[in-house]
């Protein structure tokens, strides 16, 4: 029997640029050409001013730990508990859910506001997930 796998994202036309970006080692966000609002998750219009004129850009990949839980049970398929489910606030403003890698999954190691940087984890040849690790330096 195959090992249970972690949930695999399936891109839609509106999110394909994001998943193309992670595969290329870029964290891509969108910015409104009209009001400069930066937003996530992807959509082809600005959720702040409704303009359809928006651009995709490469984000810095830097942010900080906004909040998290350390999940013990029940664990999702493909995860070995305990593991942290984090929300990262990006320097550009938007927040996204992620995992924190290269870091003990403990309350002591996972300090709120700690600086993070994006890393990329290939799930298969189609999907690469953005995850975050403690920022170096």
């Amino acid at each position, binding site marked *: 029997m195959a090992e249970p796998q972690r949930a695999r994202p399936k891109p839609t036309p509106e999110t394909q640029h994001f998943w193309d970006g992670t595969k290329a080692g870029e964290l891509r966000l969108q910015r409104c050409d009209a009001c400069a609002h930066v937003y996530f998750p992807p959509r082809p219009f600005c959720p702040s001013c409704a303009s359809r004129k928006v651009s995709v850009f490469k984000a810095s990949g830097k942010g900080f730990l906004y909040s998290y839980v350390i999940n*013990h049970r029940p664990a999702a398929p493909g995860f070995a508990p305990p593991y942290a*489910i984090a929300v990262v606030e990006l320097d550009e403003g938007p*927040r996204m*859910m992620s995992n924190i890698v290269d870091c003990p999954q403990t309350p002591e190691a996972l300090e709120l506001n700690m600086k993070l940087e994006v890393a990329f984890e290939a799930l298969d040849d189609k999907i690469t997930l953005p995850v975050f690790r403690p920022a170096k330096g």
Partner: protein
Amino acid sequence: MRRNQVAVVGAAETTELGVVPNASQLQLHADAALNAIADAGLKLSDIDGFATAVETPQQVCHYLGIKPTWVDGTSVGGCSFMLHVRHAAAAIEAGLCKTVLITHAESGKSMIGKLPRSIPADSLQGQFEAPYGVYGPPSMFPIPVLRFMKTYGITHEQLASVAVVQREWAAKNPRAMMKDPITVADVLNSRMIAYPFRLLQCCLVTDGGGALILTSADRARDFPRKPVYIMGTGESVETPMVSQMETFNSSRAFKVAGPLAFKEAGIAHKDVDHLMIYDAFAHLPLFGLGDLGFMPYEETGKFIADGNTRPGGKLPLNTNGGGLSYMHSGMYGMYALQESVRQMRGIAPAQVPNAKISVCHGVGGMFAASGTIVFTNER
């Protein structure tokens, strides 16, 4: 909406609560409905409006043999029933129907005839949350709490005291699942579920249901039970993705729904005799006390830890024992509403003496949605 124009004239839970292995989810809807209809002294044929969540109105109406002229299938999670009360009151006032039945039931524990819930891989949640290991409410609902604690200086002990105080209320309630007294240390030593929350800070998982019957306040006088009037209502939604909330320092949906209901009711916080804040997890009463404007967020943890919400305290909160100790079939809002109605009728197992105004505040789909109802027993 005008205040006190619509009243609850029937209210009941399923005959059994807790573990009910001898009934499907659909039958639990029917059991609650039949109990509420008997409570109101009505016949099924008197019902011309119907609302439910998760199960469809057509499923439950057909099973019960109801022919409605108004239906509402709003399904936004555990507070759906607060929204149903609000919508039903508006429908009755608008003349779309006269007598509305609202049902909830869930075979949350026994899982008999329970509809599957799954997250499609191409939904936004499926793409941007599920891959990070969220797996059911315990892994999602508490995600904001560490930020909330840091911002307002809330302690782990204060969050543990939420469960302790609610167990005190549950001890007075023969139908509560968990009645044995617990201490803050018991809570902090219970099994870790999703840090910072341990088992005793997470809701129960049970089977059961409940139903309400609403009609116009003018007709309500002719019913066998003391009418409980709908004094004010509010609702809102924010986001199905907990990671995308505007902030973890409050709930936007709470901050819309709660004040709307207070304004419509024309009441101030000091007027509230009894309060229900949907407690799927221990942080929700703190968010609720802050977002509904009872006190600054910084004071919410201390307020509960100091005993202000316990039996005999100045603001009786979650007097049935709540989702943490009474029951939680998955969508607890109906049970919070039932307790508010019992308190307004004066028949609650842990009755608050002379309570005249009850505020019942619900949350749904993590922090996705919210509904608030203000009840009164005086017109």
